[in-house]
């Protein structure tokens, strides 16, 4: 007798109280994946979406064809950026707990994703981040004070008090305004890249979404338009395993990799160790070169782990084992790059500890300055008239009227 159809429910490997289980993550040894020519036809390189591109091995050595052979000083800059991201995140979490800011989202464990990509791209390339790539802001030259003023919605807030914390933007740094609605930036990045191609410029666009939001239609629109018009765009799926409490299997990760969505659209998919700075750098560099040679878009899945809570409103101990992060098989991105530099004799535990202190002081000094421009609880506040600006380029009559009503209400 044939069995009747049965609804399949994705398996979550471990819940609180159970032992972490990462047997579902297919791994490849560092250096094992071939690096094809950047203009290789998609059909010939489909295996890149299944295997895992890794450069740093267990002995902290950079191995294999994807090794980007970066100078030591570049690696030290990268380590500094990644450590700055972590120190910044830790400090901002504390300020949220103290009630100084309303909300925060850490990127702990995912620092390499943003730092490596931003360093591999040109300053003229345009970035369309989601809310967990704060590292992009550091590499693109955002000042700590400016970022903090956004978090504080204070008188120097770049968003004039209109956005939740972490929804930064920078015109000079070519980082697009972060929406907060998931995945919407993905097809917008493709449109930006299409415009670059229409204008005959060689800038590329890069965008990031989580594996969870790859379920949105916007993700599929992005891949389709990128494929149809061969747009010079790099589409990054940050697979950090968890969308708040929802395991990546519910976004379709159980049946195939997220990178494998690429070949289905005629776009190469690269499955990359997201905690390996060198691998992320190399993959981004490959995709950018491919785009600049007119061969179109690349989908990159960055396999990583969201080591912190989704946001300050989340408590992951309610849905996954507490010790999950430390058992993650791809380790910690900061520790791995640190280990690589130490193995080359270009770094030490002492220098590392000194740098942490230096960065903490830098962040603390920036915070002291940012707070003088106002916090949620004290200091100067934004002019409430600003509420009515920028809805349109010029303020229409009905908003002038409403601004006046509010003034009277508050006088």
């Amino acid at each position, binding site marked *: 007798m044939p069995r009747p159809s049965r609804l399949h429910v994705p398996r979550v490997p471990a819940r609180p109280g159970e032992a972490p289980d990462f047997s579902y993550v297919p791994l490849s040894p560092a250096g094992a994946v071939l690096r094809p020519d950047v203009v290789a036809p998609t059909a010939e390189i489909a295996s890149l979406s299944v295997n895992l591109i890794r450069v740093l091995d267990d002995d902290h050595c950079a191995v294999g064809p994807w090794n980007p052979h970066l100078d030591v000083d570049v690696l030290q800059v990268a380590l500094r950026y990644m450590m700055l991201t972590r120190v910044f995140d830790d400090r901002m979490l504390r300020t949220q707990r103290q009630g100084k800011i309303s909300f925060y989202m850490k990127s702990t464990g995912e620092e390499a994703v943003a730092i490596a990509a931003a360093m591999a791209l040109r300053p003229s390339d345009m970035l369309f981040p989601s809310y967990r790539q704060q590292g992009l802001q550091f590499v693109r030259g955002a000042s700590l004070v400016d970022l903090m003023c956004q978090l504080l919605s204070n008188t120097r807030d770049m968003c004039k008090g209109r956005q939740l914390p972490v929804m930064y933007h920078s015109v000079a740094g070519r980082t697009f305004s972060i929406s907060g609605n998931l995945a919407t930036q993905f*097809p917008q990045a493709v*449109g930006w*890249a299409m415009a670059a191609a229409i204008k005959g410029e060689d800038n590329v666009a890069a965008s990031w979404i989580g594996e969870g939001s790859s379920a949105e239609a916007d993700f599929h*629109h992005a891949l389709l338009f990128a494929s149809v018009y061969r747009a010079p765009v790099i589409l990054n799926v940050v697979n950090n395993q968890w969308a708040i409490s929802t395991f990546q299997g519910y976004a379709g990760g159980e049946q195939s990799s997220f990178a494998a969505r690429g070949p289905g659209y005629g776009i190469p998919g690269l499955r990359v160790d997201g905690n390996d700075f060198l691998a992320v750098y190399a993959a981004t560099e490959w995709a950018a070169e491919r785009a600049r040679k007119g061969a179109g878009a690349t989908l990159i899945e960055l396999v990583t782990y969201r080591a912190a809570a989704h946001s300050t409103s989340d408590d992951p101990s309610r849905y996954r084992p507490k010790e999950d992060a430390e058992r993650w098989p791809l380790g910690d991105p900061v520790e791995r790059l640190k280990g690589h530099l130490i193995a080359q004799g270009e770094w030490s535990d002492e220098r590392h500890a000194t740098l942490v202190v230096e960065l903490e002081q830098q962040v603390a000094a920036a915070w002291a300055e940012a707070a003088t421009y106002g916090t949620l609880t004290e200091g100067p506040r934004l002019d409430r008239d600003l509420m009515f600006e920028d809805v349109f380029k010029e303020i229409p009559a009905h908003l002038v009227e409403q601004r006046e009503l509010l003034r009277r209400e508050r006088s």
Partner: protein
Amino acid sequence: MAQMNMIQALNSAMDIALGRDPAVVVLGEDVGYFGGVFRVTDGLQRKYGQHRVLDTPIAEGGIIAAAIGMGVNGLRPVAEIQFADYIYPAYDQIVSELARLRYRSAGAFSAPVTIRTPCGGGIRGGQTHSQSPEALFAHVCGIKLVMPSNPYDAKGLLIAAIEDDDPVLFLEPKRLYNGPFDGDPGKPAVPWSTHPKGEVPDGHYTVPIGKADIVRAGSELTVISYGTMVHVAEAAAASLGLDAEVIDVRTFVPLDVETLVASVQKTGRCLIAHEATRFGGFGGELIATIQERCFWQLEAPIERVCGWDTPYPHAFEWEYFPGQARVAAALTRVMEAG
């Protein structure tokens, strides 16, 4: 001056915009080689090339998202959604992204996207080719909303929309594409060449966004309408021999409150006519706006004539459509009240 129907007028607007500004691009389903299912983009790809006039996949959300990205990167996209009934897959990109980008980034980023889409019924389109969704977009902050009722306004408003640095949703009443329509489907079709607003300048001109048009000056009552219903309402008032002041709203956002209020303060009576469903329709906003400002001048309750609160039914199109009889009955009530 030339005789143009609304299709030709809209085509001419895009032709001029494409010719004057290399940043203007046109994109949408079937708009390129084929020239659009209503022929509104006919010949534009041949003239301006495949990089300026793009055929797209059938993905409205993708079309608008791509247009936003293009707008951020210095282009001035004119996106066509083939029918307003198909705009909903793009709703999030329009409402949450396009309309709010300037606000959320405090002016750092914006996208001057124009979205054109045919709306309204009267073409045997059934419930998926007849909707008038203006109220769904009038409620959104940050996007201008326009609907012309004749070729002259269509061209001038579309050029103004494309040149506007804010996003504009441009609704085209498709029953009016080929001629004015007084609501009687039994009569022979009338071409735009018989109508003064079918006279359209060949060159560049704009009709300002945010200004209503007094189609017919009058003293007995004010009839406020837009799109196809402007012509129906005008004919209904004429059939009753009323000296009605007929106003074409033309722009929903920003609304020309001044023109509407001045008229009702003068006439003391007001009827609102739209094709869209009644409940939560734009007529409600018009009534509230006028009531707030004209209450003491009103001599009768403001009435509205609308489509019924049902989907647009294929077999009962003309029972659904608020034709002359329904408008005339309401006009009579407004005139007899008080």
